[in-house]
């Protein structure tokens, strides 16, 4: 039997020509070419009465959250419990990486002094200079995103907590006075809704699955829980951005986020853990560049190739 919708000869020649067409210089590469500005076509003008340094640090902090968590989630690639989850986790990591790239590009554009100085003539774009040439203490991400996952339950719990938090913030960030942050948030809301949905489904499944899965889920929740309060601190970076109308102070949206989380916990028949938040060090936490031991080790690996070739073109 043949499928009349498929013209076999065309398929063959099309692929032969796609191969032969390798040297054709077209602009249809996924994710753009190396030299393409990720913010191309977007109005990057900072509103007159907005402090560019405040905007830059805020965008960098949000970008760092996504960058570090994406790196951790991508460690699941080829290791997930099933092929479908391998693909789903890669989707989450790709979305966050896309957010990180845009936000770090925004940060460097708003305040060029943020990007580390590279050798004269280095082709490394500013968002990559930020991602690959800062040390751990210069990153401003929350500490929740740093540790490696011990098991799949860790991944589920962390994606749930992170996306519940970030989605609440981003639903307000769409009204940012900075056109770039507003656009990034508008795109990100859809992505984060999917991440939250994916994680919440697995959270309930693991909680109500087997004795082992419930035990592992509860253990993972206990590991992550001490880092939950840090997400809601009214940190000066977020507060300053909020005052200027470009950012959101997360302490103002905590209540609605807790309601969402409580619904998931209730469906999963899991009690809210009663463990205190992780202490700060002399008042400093992730947003101050004070991190867990895991971060510098993760960055050492992530940045190794880029740092070995500071003048390299990729």
């Amino acid at each position, binding site marked *: 039997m*043949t499928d009349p919708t498929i013209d076999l000869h065309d398929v063959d020649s099309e692929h032969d020509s796609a191969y032969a067409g390798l040297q054709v210089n077209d602009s249809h590469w996924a994710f753009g070419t190396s030299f393409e500005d990720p913010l191309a076509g977007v109005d990057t003008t900072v509103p007159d009465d907005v402090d560019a340094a405040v905007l830059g640090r805020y965008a960098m902090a949000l970008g760092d959250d996504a960058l570090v968590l994406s790196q951790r989630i991508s460690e699941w690639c080829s290791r997930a419990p099933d092929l479908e989850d391998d693909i789903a986790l890669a989707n989450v990591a790709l979305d966050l990486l896309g957010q990180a790239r845009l936000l770090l590009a925004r940060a460097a554009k708003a305040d060029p002094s943020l990007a580390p100085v590279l050798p004269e003539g280095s082709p490394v774009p500013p968002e990559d200079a930020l991602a690959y040439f800062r040390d751990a203490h210069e990153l401003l991400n929350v500490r929740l995103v740093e540790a490696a996952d011990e098991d799949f339950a860790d991944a589920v719990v962390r994606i749930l907590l992170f996306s519940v938090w970030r989605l609440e913030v981003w639903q307000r960030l769409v009204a940012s006075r900075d056109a770039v942050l507003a656009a990034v948030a508008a795109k990100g809301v859809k992505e984060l809704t999917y991440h939250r949905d994916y994680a919440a489904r697995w959270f309930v499944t693991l909680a109500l699955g087997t004795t082992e899965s419930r035990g592992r889920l509860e253990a993972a929740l206990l590991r992550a829980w001490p880092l939950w309060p840090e997400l809601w601190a009214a940190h000066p970076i977020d507060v300053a951005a909020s005052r200027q109308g470009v950012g959101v102070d997360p302490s103002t949206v905590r209540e609605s986020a807790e309601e969402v989380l409580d619904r998931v916990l209730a469906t999963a028949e899991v009690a809210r853990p009663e463990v205190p938040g992780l202490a700060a060090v002399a008042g400093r936490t992730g947003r101050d560049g004070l991190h867990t031991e895991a971060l510098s080790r993760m960055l050492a690996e992530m940045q190794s190739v880029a740092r070995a070739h500071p003048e390299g073109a990729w």
Partner: protein
Amino acid sequence: MASVFEQTIARNERIEPRDEMPDAYRATLVRQIAQHAHSEIIGMQPEGNWISRAPSLRRKLVLLAKVQDEAGHGLYLYSAAETLGVSRDELDEMLRTGRQKYSSIFNYPTLTYADVGTIGWLVDGAAICNQVPLCRTSYGPYGRAMIRICKEESFHQRQGYELLMTMMGGTDAQRAMVQESVDRFWWPALMMFGPPDDDSPNTAQSMAWGIKRNTNDELRQKFVDMTVPQAKALGVTLPDPDLVWNEERGAHDFGQPDWEEFWQVVKGNGPCNAQRLAHRRRAHDEGAWVREAASAYAARSQHD
């Protein structure tokens, strides 16, 4: 009188899942499609090795998306195999226990970031040469899966080539990295077409059934002829002193890969055979409790 199956094959038409087919045809297809699916799944590892270290945010996006596509290809191919009456779980078990093979190329290590580009250019390029004719293979579900896979593979190949081109325009150290990577992958890429026709006992039957459309040596020749001008445009040397244009044949003459090494790798003694299988087994074992939880939850939801 020829059977319906034989008549369909003779007319170059597709065999579909519910059509009658000889047992040996079915078995050959299961083996080939499963081996292909396993190659996609194991093939995630060598490139996955560099996701954490991809040297720019854009390259990390491209690489992660590519490895994710391979998981997707594995899914389509397992689905195609399932139309022949085997389950994905059974096939995965055959992979984990070493009873079914995957492409030997993935038993070579990835040692520098240039390998990500070289795998795209040479390995995906060789795979495309092998796979494009399979879009016309006689078994319908396999042919249709291959059409979609070939489109994505072409895209991956272009991305790999573009990475190498960009690196060749970078620093001396980057150019040296590209050349070293091409030197290492050239011969294993040629081996991807399988042993010379004289040593390939299954080819004749597979061609008669329309499962295979070209011999190993024909495809290898095609690959070499396509790759030489691309290497020139890239500015790299292919590591074969016997590689030369033969005006009379209208094709390149070239040397033979080390077939002894090929058989060593096929038999399980390659640089990464044990590592790749151990990785797959570990992922399966560590995910067992999650899959059990999903089954238990689904069963519970049905009762509720």
